[in-house]
């Protein structure tokens, strides 16, 4: 066994143990949903920093962003404005969500919508949007695992009935994930996040020092990038050009990010609104790391790994997603590559765990309790959430094993657009209360329009060129759909004004 594999396995075993024993840390009554699924709302500034950092900057980000830079150049750097500009929004809006959720015991965004608007249909729409968007995201985390497993050369496969040939390491990591999520809930995940983030920072620091030195400096690295891709394409006459697409991609993504179920779970697990406000100032440290991780794509170009025969199989199986693993194998000593791969693998398991917990919270609170068993006890509620979290992970595993990865990527693309359509009913609702029926109509228009635009593009891109007054406007479909959504929501609210409105259980002072 190589040093790479030994270091990798040792770290994975370590975090699995940490995860399993996490339930004893600040032990709470895990038969209560808020204890299991929100860690008892007990995390302070530092733990929340690790938890949200691990939650928002996932393994898939670490693989896909540099892969995009590797293939498409400057356009892939939109991840940086996205990961920076979300913080003023986090700072202003989300302490309000924390306060109102704390006051009324909400644990999901749909809980808040239910309380704010008293409209079950709208709350259901928000819950379903969250579930549908987060599932393919989870599946992509397992794709990240697959890439790492392939890079480690762990091709240990067995033939199973029904499933066909499956990778044993993938199944084992799935079992570890399921076990610690079930026993420890968000507490175990938070502890793992600490290890994961430290490994990520060590890897990034080493990468930005060692690799440019080996390659002869940043000047040489950028010289390896095709000249047309170093910058965004120049703007042609009669079009707003690639720059507009770049900015709308960043804006649409940042509006959606904190509305994803796993983000809401991470935010609401903090112990006070103060924790969220402070984190808005210290979380950008991860964005700096992300910017350099994005540049790893260029370092992979400059190192020439794509042309090397030993990585040909990996590129064939995973395309550009193999660029960063190949770079690590090429540029790092064996044991350090093992550490870097462990960072990516844990970076896949940890967010996947929060995503599964978020699915459990959403389904139990907003579908099971709301529509199926309104009188269920808190114990049943917590048990149900654990089971759903398990089922969600099983679904993600099945997705990765049985369907083509392309579907997961396309669904994740759509998921981002759909989540963005919950902005008026969740984010905006922290400030203004539109009519719930109007919001539901706006949501339907936004989801329909966004899906249609992406379908028109053959599910390959999410930048749909609008033609307005002879001008071509290439715009991220989530943003143009959101504009339509907001218009419908606002106009219908004006039309419906005066007709009977249901009670708002939240009061203005609940948000402060």
């Amino acid at each position: 066994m190589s040093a790479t594999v030994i270091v990798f396995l040792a770290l994975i075993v370590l975090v699995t143990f940490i995860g399993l024993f996490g339930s004893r840390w600040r032990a709470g009554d895990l038969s209560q949903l808020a204890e299991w699924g929100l860690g008892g709302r007990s995390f302070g500034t530092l733990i929340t920093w690790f938890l949200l950092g691990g939650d928002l900057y996932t393994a898939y980000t670490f693989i896909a962003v540099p892969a995009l830079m590797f293939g498409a150049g400057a356009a892939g750097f939109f991840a940086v404005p996205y990961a920076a500009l979300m913080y003023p929004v986090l700072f202003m809006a989300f302490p309000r969500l924390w306060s109102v959720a704390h006051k009324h015991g909400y644990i999901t965004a749909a809980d808040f919508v239910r309380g704010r608007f008293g409209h079950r249909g709208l709350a259901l729409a928000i819950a379903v949007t969250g579930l549908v968007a987060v599932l393919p995201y989870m599946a992509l985390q397992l794709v990240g695992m697959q890439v790492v497993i392939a890079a480690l050369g762990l091709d240990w496969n067995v033939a199973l009935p029904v499933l066909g040939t499956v990778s044993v390491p993938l199944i084992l990591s799935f079992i570890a994930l399921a076990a610690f999520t079930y026993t420890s809930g968000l507490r175990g995940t938070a502890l793992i996040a600490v290890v994961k983030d430290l490994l990520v920072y060590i890897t990034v620091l080493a990468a930005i020092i060692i690799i440019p030195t080996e390659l002869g400096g940043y000047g040489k690295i950028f010289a390896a990038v095709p000249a047309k891709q170093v910058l965004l394409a120049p703007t042609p006459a009669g079009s707003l050009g690639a720059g507009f697409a770049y900015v709308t991609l960043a804006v649409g993504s940042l509006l959606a990010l904190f509305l994803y179920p796993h983000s809401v779970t991470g935010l609401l697990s903090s112990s006070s609104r103060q924790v969220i406000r402070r984190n808005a100032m210290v979380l950008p440290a991860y964005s700096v790391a992300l910017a350099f991780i994005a540049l790893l794509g260029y370092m992979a170009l400059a190192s020439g790994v794509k042309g090397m025969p030993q990585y040909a199989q990996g590129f064939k199986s995973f395309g550009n997603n193999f660029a960063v693993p190949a770079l690590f194998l090429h540029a790092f000593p064996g044991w350090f590559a093992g550490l870097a791969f462990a960072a990516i693998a844990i970076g896949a398991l940890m967010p996947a765990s929060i995503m599964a917990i978020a699915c459990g919270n959403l389904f139990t609170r907003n579908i099971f309790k709301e529509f199926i068993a309104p009188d269920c006890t808190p114990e049943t509620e917590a048990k149900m959430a654990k089971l759903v979290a398990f089922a969600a992970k099983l679904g993600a595993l099945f997705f990765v094993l049985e369907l083509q990865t392309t579907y997961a990527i396309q669904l994740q693309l759509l998921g981002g657009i759909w989540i963005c359509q919950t902005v008026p009913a969740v984010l905006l609702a922290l400030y203004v209360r539109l009519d719930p029926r109007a919001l539901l109509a706006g949501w339907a228009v936004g989801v329909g329009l966004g899906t249609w635009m992406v379908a028109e593009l053959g599910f390959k891109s999410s930048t749909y060129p609008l033609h307005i007054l002879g001008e071509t406007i290439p715009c991220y479909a989530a943003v143009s759909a959101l504009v339509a959504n907001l218009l419908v929501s606002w106009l219908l609210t004006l039309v419906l004004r005066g007709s009977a409105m249901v009670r708002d259980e939240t009061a203005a002072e609940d948000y402060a």
Partner: protein
Amino acid sequence: MKKFHPVYLFLLIPYAAWAWVPFYNRVEPSLFGIPFFYWWQIFGIFVTAASILPVYLYQERRK
């Protein structure tokens, strides 16, 4: 409605830094071989974190 305090304008700075793409979609001036397009945006992350601070301090003092 609470009275608006100008300190909140700080929060617009990061958005202004990214809004006008032609300004930063250029190679020169480069820094340590990194084109302007890239280092400007990395610098922007620090600007973003820093622009939240005055608002945070203002809100703390007002309590």
